[in-house]
């Protein structure tokens, strides 16, 4: 894992001290709210429906056990005993007090964390594949790239006041688990004909009011030019982005309006000018950062672990959990564990302080002290020996974290919605809870197979509903909550936006509608087709007929 150097430490500590001062000046009345608001937002402190909300950055979703324990401590000491993991791989605390905000930031600084770049029109916390460093299909650990970008972008004077917020996602693998095509910039590691590693560069993706899939503007960018090329993209955007209209200010609108080809040419021109200035990282510096992400000292193990196979054979529940929540690891004898934060009837992404500590303990004992937060609002133990899987599972059962539903219909992404969020038009969490209860039967979920259901409480689409196989958007119609359903979306390497199936459903009928969709799929499915395959073959009509048939 990356460790702060002296510069990082000093910088973060200075920020805490500055913020403490700013809060004191606000509380004494020296600063007005208008003056103070941008300062608190720069430190991740929002004001939501019920209280302040602190969004803490988890760079590329990686946490040490010590950091997770600190989050648990903050939840208990300064909040109401829990935290919410988000689709940006961050964590949000829903009830911090302004009076204690600087103390929380000071506690975070102790474990090399902060809340910078979680708000405002800057380059936000960079996200990455949550299986980084463990995935079998990976070229290189994407977190090295993400960390390089983090260091380059933190407080970058030219890019601290962009036309709008800016999100970068990186994957080192061919299977995209980081939704890179729906980010302002998506980077995918690829190899050129000579086998050298570099990036495919995708720009202009995003969800929200105007959902768009990103366009590839460069098939191969040699690794050493990463920063100069990103700088060229940001410069073109900074100059031409629509500062006059908040709804048109994201880079995706610019790319769409002028076309990906023209945009790429502008970037290329800017890059030719920039690339020989000292923007790019010297090789030694890159190597220094890379060293922090060196693989942990894996033992030499056989690919198959006999004890694990036996446990799987003997215990059906364990076997079921393994089937869904355990993925192949690149090192023989190891496995990747997804810790589901989607218990039946639970709040997607929420974890109690005790659960955070339980995961921290399991990571310390069985996964080289490291935890990941996934954009699907789960946690990941990336490097577990197969021989330890049973013990990890037992530990998760004790912490009520052993739902065997990763990737299934109850593994729902849901934004906070109207239960917490100031911008919401409808609730999303209770809809997720009701769906997960309706499909509680795990055998039934297995029969349905992989299905991504995503819910947002407003058009801002933090719940990624456009790219759910089934997407749900909460809207307000004359003071009543209604839910618009989209079908056929997808967030992986074949990213596509879902299409609206028809008129919206009421709060009371939306869960029935989801069940009707699932039943229609099961009725139409051939030879183990996935949901989107069946939908592509039969079209929307069978679904519409069932959903809107007169009763």
């Amino acid at each position, binding site marked *: 894992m990356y460790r702060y150097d002296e510069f990082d430490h000093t910088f973060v500590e200075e920020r805490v001290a500055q913020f403490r001062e700013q809060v004191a000046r*606000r*509380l*004494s*009345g020296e600063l*007005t*709210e208008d003056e103070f608001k941008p300062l608190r937002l720069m430190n991740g402190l929002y*004001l*939501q*429906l*019920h*209280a*302040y909300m602190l969004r803490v950055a988890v760079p590329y979703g990686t946490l040490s056990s010590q950091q997770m324990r600190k989050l648990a401590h903050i939840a208990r000491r300064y909040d*109401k005993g829990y935290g919410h993991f988000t689709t940006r791989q961050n964590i949000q605390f829903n*009830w*911090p*007090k*302004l*009076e204690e905000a600087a103390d929380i930031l000071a506690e975070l600084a102790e474990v090399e964390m902060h809340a910078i770049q979680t708000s405002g029109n800057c380059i936000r916390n960079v996200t990455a594949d949550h299986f980084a460093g463990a995935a079998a299909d990976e070229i290189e650990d994407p977190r090295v790239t993400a960390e390089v970008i983090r260091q380059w972008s933190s407080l970058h004077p030219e890019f601290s006041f962009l036309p709008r917020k800016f999100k970068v996602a990186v994957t080192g693998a061919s299977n995209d688990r980081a939704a890179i095509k729906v980010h302002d910039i998506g980077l995918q590691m690829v190899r050129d004909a000579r086998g050298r590693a570099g990036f495919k560069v995708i720009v202009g993706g995003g969800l929200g009011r105007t959902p768009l899939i990103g366009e590839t503007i460069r098939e191969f960018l040699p690794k050493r030019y990463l920063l100069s090329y990103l700088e060229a993209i940001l410069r073109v955007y900074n100059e031409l982005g629509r500062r006059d209209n908040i709804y048109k200010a994201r880079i995706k609108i610019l790319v769409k309006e002028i076309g990906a080809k023209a945009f790429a040419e502008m970037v290329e021109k800017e890059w030719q000018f920039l690339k020989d200035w000292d923007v790019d990282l010297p090789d030694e510096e890159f190597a220094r950062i890379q060293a922090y992400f060196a693989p942990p000292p894996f033992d030499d193990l056989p690919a198959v672990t006999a004890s694990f196979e036996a446990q799987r054979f003997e215990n059906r529940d364990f076997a079921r959990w393994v089937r869904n929540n355990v993925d192949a690891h690149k090192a023989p004898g190891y496995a990747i564990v997804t810790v589901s934060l989607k218990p039946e009837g639970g*709040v997607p992404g929420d974890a109690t302080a005790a659960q955070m500590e339980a995961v921290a303990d399991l990571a310390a004992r069985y996964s080289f002290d490291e935890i990941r937060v996934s954009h699907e609002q789960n946690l990941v133990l990336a490097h577990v020996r197969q021989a330890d899987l049973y013990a990890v599972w037992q530990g998760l059962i004790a912490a009520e974290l052993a739902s065997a539903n990763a990737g299934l219909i109850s593994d729902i992404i849901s934004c906070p919605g*109207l*239960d*917490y969020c100031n911008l*919401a038009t409808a*609730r999303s*969490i*209770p809809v997720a*809870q009701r769906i997960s209860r309706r499909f509680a039967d795990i055998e039934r979920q297995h029969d349905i197979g992989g299905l991504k259901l995503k819910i947002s409480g407003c058009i801002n689409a933090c719940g990624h509903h456009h790219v759910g196989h089934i997407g749900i958007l909460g809207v*307000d119609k004359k*003071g*009543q*909550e209604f839910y618009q359903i989209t079908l056929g979306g997808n967030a992986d390497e074949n990213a596509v936006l879902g299409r609206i199936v028809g008129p919206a459903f009421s709060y009371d009928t939306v869960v029935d509608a989801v069940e009707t969709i699932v039943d229609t799929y099961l009725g139409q499915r051939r030879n183990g087709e996935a949901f989107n395959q069946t939908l592509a073959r039969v079209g929307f009509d069978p679904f519409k007929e069932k959903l809107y048939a007169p009763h």
Partner: protein
Amino acid sequence: MTAQIVTANRLGDGAVIYLGRDDIWGERLGGAAVARSQDEAAALLARAEAPAHRTNVVGPYLMDVIDEATAPRPASNRENIRALGPTVRSDLGRQAEIPGRR
């Protein structure tokens, strides 16, 4: 016109508060001063925005209420949730203190 009251968040802890008849902010919606005409609403908001409140109140605004004989009730879903707490956590927010709601 729909009856209105003024709500805001308390500066120090962000709690949802309402402007009372005596110009004191409190957590009880039932204790809020109700405006029943546009003039009354404008005057109420002006009182809420007075300099004296700026050191303890954030973002005051008018919200619609249903003006019932006993006490006003929020007219919107959003304000109902603000008044009570998250509908998915009956142990949190003001609802946790109301007997029989948990």
